[in-house]
Each structure stands twice: as structure tokens, then as C-alpha cells.
């Protein structure tokens, strides 16, 4: 691969959006080409710069009030027979899906609890017990509170900013919740000891959230976020490799 071929792909490579063959070609090119490797580092740098600041505009407005205003607009709920029929059908379908989805195994039930936990952590504004972006503050904070010591890697270079930690309960056991942020997307990572066999990572889609869970060396991990699946996958990989 030449520089002319590699350069337009660098940005997509950073986003994990290239297919395997192109990714390997770009990676190979980067090991041999200082100029392109430098450009790639610049892209990584830009990502971490953007991730390090809070660019959310919604602080300047009141989203709840906005939502109320929208609901009050008559057009939204203007009676339309087919809409009503559609809504009824959708509600029935949802009810069926809900009932069915509640039935199967313990995994599924736990997954839902995990996602509920994630939503709750965002709702009650009790995201962190120990707010800190310093892993050397967060990790020791758990000492004496848990029967294991959670791994808290610094991933800020990769665009995942550490927000803090929280004590939580997962599947009836005490768990460490480590919170990271990628722009406006909060990631809750729960770590709890006492898992059985190792399990490879599994990604699930629940209520618009992505859940990634795995078990390794007697420890269970759950990562939940509304971040896209690919990036949550990358996040999980980084946690596993540190």
C-alpha cells in the first residue's frame, strides 16, 4: 500500500470502520511509514482532544421543558384513526415482545437488570461516589469496600475519559462500577468477583443500549452504554488487554 492509498483510509481506520483486509494493509503501511504514522497519531490526538472537553450544548437549555412544550403542541396528538390503530397494534406487539422477552433464562434477566442499573445511575444523578479522572484515586477508593481490587486503566488517550467510581450491587454481589465517558455517552463498567468459568465477550442490544459482558479469571464484567456497538467493543477490548 502506498501513502496515497493509505492516507484517505487513516481516519476510517481510527473509527474501526475499515474491513479486515484494509485494516491490516493500513496497519502494515503504518509500521513502515513514519509520515503516515505521524498523521495517524495526529488523528488520535484530535480524538482525545475532543473527548477531553464537554461539548454537550444541552446545558444551555431545559430539555424537560422542551419536551413538555412539544407534547402540548396539538399536532402531535391530533387524533388520526390510522395512527391510533398503529399505536394499538404497536402496544400489543410490545406487550407480546415484553412478555416473551421476560421469559427466557437467567442471563437475559440479569442483562436487563444491568441495563436498568445503567439507566438508574444516569437518572438519579448518583453516577459516582468518587469523582475523579485519576486512576490512582479511583482504584484505592475501593480498598476495604470490596473483596477484590478492580482494574481501573487510564484510557483517556483512546478517547475514553475516566469520570469516577461507584459502589454497586450486581447479581446479589458487591460490585465496583467504573464510569467512563466518550463525549456525551456514559459507559458504566461493572466488575464483580465470584464468576464461574471464563466466558468470551458477548454483545447485546437492549432498549437502545449496548451491553457487553464477559468473564475472565473469576471476575465478571458488564459494560453498558448508548455508545455504538463497535466502539463499546473497542472499549471492552482495551479493558481486557490492560
Amino acid at each position: 500500500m502506498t501513502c496515497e492509498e493509505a492516507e484517505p483510509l487513516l481516519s476510517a481506520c481510527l473509527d474501526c470502520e475499515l474491513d479486515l483486509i484494509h485494516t491490516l494493509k493500513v496497519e502494515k503501511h503504518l509500521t513502515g511509514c513514519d509520515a503516515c504514522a505521524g498523521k495517524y497519531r495526529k488523528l488520535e490526538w484530535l480524538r482525545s482532544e475532543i473527548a477531553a472537553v464537554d461539548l454537550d450544548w444541552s446545558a444551555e437549555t431545559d430539555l424537560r421543558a422542551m419536551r413538555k412544550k412539544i407534547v402540548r403542541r396539538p399536532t402531535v396528538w391530533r387524533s388520526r384513526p390510522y395512527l391510533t390503530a398503529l399505536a394499538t397494534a404497536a402496544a400489543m406487539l410490545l406487550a407480546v415482545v415484553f412478555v416473551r422477552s421476560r421469559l427466557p433464562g437467567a442471563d437475559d434477566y440479569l442483562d436487563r437488570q444491568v441495563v436498568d442499573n445503567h439507566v438508574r445511575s444516569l437518572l438519579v444523578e448518583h453516577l459516582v461516589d468518587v469523582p475523579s479522572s485519576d486512576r490512582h484515586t479511583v482504584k484505592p477508593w475501593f480498598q476495604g469496600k470490596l473483596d477484590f481490587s478492580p482494574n481501573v486503566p487510564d484510557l483517556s488517550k483512546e478517547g475514553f475519559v475516566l469520570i469516577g467510581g461507584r459502589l454497586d450491587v450486581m447479581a446479589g454481589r458487591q460490585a465496583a462500577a467504573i464510569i467512563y465517558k466518550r463525549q456525551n455517552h456514559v459507559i458504566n463498567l461493572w466488575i464483580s468477583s465470584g464468576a464461574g468459568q471464563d466466558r468470551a465477550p458477548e454483545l447485546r442490544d437492549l432498549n437502545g443500549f449496548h451491553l457487553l459482558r464477559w468473564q475472565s479469571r473469576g471476575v465478571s464484567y458488564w459494560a453498558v452504554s448508548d455508545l455504538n456497538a463497535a466502539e463499546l467493543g473497542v472499549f471492552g477490548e482495551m479493558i481486557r488487554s490492560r
Partner: protein
Amino acid sequence: MLWPHLRGVYNLARWLVGNAEDAEDVVQESFVKAYQYADQFRGSDPRSWLYAIVRNTSLNFIQRRRPKHEVEWNEDLPEPADRTPGAEADLIQVTRRDQIRSAIVRLPGEFREALVLREIEGMAYKEIAAVLNVPLGTVMSRLSRARSLLIRELAPEKGGSR
């Protein structure tokens, strides 16, 4: 359900139209449209669909207002810091944020929207392509361009420090 996306689409509108008041109008209009046309929605991804509505409404809005609103330009500039500037680190963070914000705002519209959807809304290329109604390759090249422009703007060493 569309409400969970309210924050995201507000942000998109805010980046595209450039001030809070207009962004709010755009979001309200978009939600009304979304509910009105919900029965015509055939796709599988309501999120991209809603973002596409907000994006189109924003573009219409910009076109409509361009001749008359120019005067009110200074109203929302500069953005006041929304936290009390306590620690110095906070201040540095806020000014860096403003630098990054204004660099993104100065991007040409088609680069800005792609970058915001990717870097701030965390969308996959496929979703961005659906929102912008362009092929994947276009998403890829616009993002690549947007990032080179931002690096040129923000990097300390090149083109004088900012």
C-alpha cells in the same frame, strides 16, 4: 420511542443552526413532523430517521433565516461559561472547549455535520450515511477532510499556536 434522542438531536440542531433559540425551534418542529409522519416510516432505525428529520429541518431553517436574521448574530456569542470558574484547570478546560467548539463551528457545513454525528454523537458510518443520505464513501471522505481541517486549526505546532 424518540424521547431518549432529544438531547442528541438538540445538539445536532445546535451545531447546525448556531444558536440555542433556533435549535429549540428546529427540534420542536422536527418532533412534530416525526409524529406526523410516523406512519410513513418504513426503515428499521428510528434514530437515524429522527436525526435525518432534524438535519433537514435545520438546513431549511438556515436557508429561510439567512436574509433577515444576520443582525442578531452577536446575541449568542460568546457562549458564557456554565460553571463557576474555580480551579485553574477548570478555566483551561473551558477555554480549550471554546477553542474546539469554534473550530468545529467554522468547518464547512457538510464536514461539520459528519464530524458531529461521528465524534460527538458516536454514530457508525452506516448510520451517518443514512442521516445524510449519502454513500458510505462520502461519509469516509468528509470525515477525513473535517479532521485534517480541525488538526490544522487546533494543533499547537502548525500554523502558529492557537
